[in-house]
């Protein structure tokens, strides 16, 4: 199987290597969709089965992660249909200014100052886990996996505008949670360090 040639110099061996190397990324994405380790494992298995069955549809030189994420997302939607579980896909309005307004409030109540001194990584890991769908998968794709809006829109099968609005709302929710984290971290303090802004 190693040496089955395909277009140009891309071989089946190259395919195996390329897609198998992406399993950690696919698992993270599967976790963002299912939020359950055993469901995520099943989803990764299903993704790889489908990927290997249709390996001829992979275009050499294209982004293997995007291809795998798309397969993963489709497989996930299939399970949803099968399980007849309902996930709200209601998106609401895009809210690009929301984050700025929130940060303005954080400057006023002192949480921005506290956040500046804190390690955000553990709080963010926690916050991502708490995000609801469809915001979580969008944030994972764009902000953690570094996919562009257009790539994420292909993977998720929604228009770019929907990706943006989900992303902005997801980020806003994350920042709300960071604000709480700053409050809890508190340094025994209240809002006294906050300088009025404007």
């Amino acid at each position: 199987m190693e040496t089955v040639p395909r277009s140009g110099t891309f071989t089946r061996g190259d395919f195996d290597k390329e897609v198998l190397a992406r399993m950690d990324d696919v698992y993270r994405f599967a976790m963002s969709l299912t939020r359950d380790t055993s469901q995520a494992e099943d989803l990764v298995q299903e993704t790889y089965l489908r990927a290997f069955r249709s390996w001829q549809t992979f275009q050499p030189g294209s982004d293997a992660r995007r291809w795998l994420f798309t397969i993963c997302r489709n497989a996930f939607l299939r399970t949803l249909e099968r399980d007849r579980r309902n996930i709200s896909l209601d998106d609401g309005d895009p809210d690009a200014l929301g984050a700025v307004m929130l940060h303005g409030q954080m400057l006023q109540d002192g949480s921005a100052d506290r956040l500046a001194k804190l390690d955000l990584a553990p709080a963010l890991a926690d916050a991502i886990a708490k995000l609801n769908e469809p915001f979580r998968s969008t944030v994972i794709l764009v902000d953690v996996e570094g996919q562009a809006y257009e790539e994420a829109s292909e993977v998720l099968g929604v228009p770019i505008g929907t990706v943006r609005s989900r992303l902005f709302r997801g980020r806003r929710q994350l920042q709300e949670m960071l604000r709480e984290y700053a409050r809890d971290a508190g340094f025994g303090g209240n809002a006294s360090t906050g300088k009025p802004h404007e």
Partner: protein
Amino acid sequence: MNSHEGLDCASAMARLWDYLDGELTPEKVAAVREHLAECADCLPHARFAERFLGELGRCKECQPPMPGTLRDKVMSTLRSEGLMS
């Protein structure tokens, strides 16, 4: 809120995410950059947003790692289906 010759604060901030995500045209990027260089109100928001995105981008490491056994499971499924040698 300030109003500078190019963008006003609201329009600059409404484009902040797109700006930081690299999703704007070069002209719009220049307009936002110009506004941030001149506006002391907006700059702290942009700095915070930048740090926030930077930390999020490092969140790969803080996500739960893939179980060590999964890779073997996938490989053996692929083999049993005759999809891999």
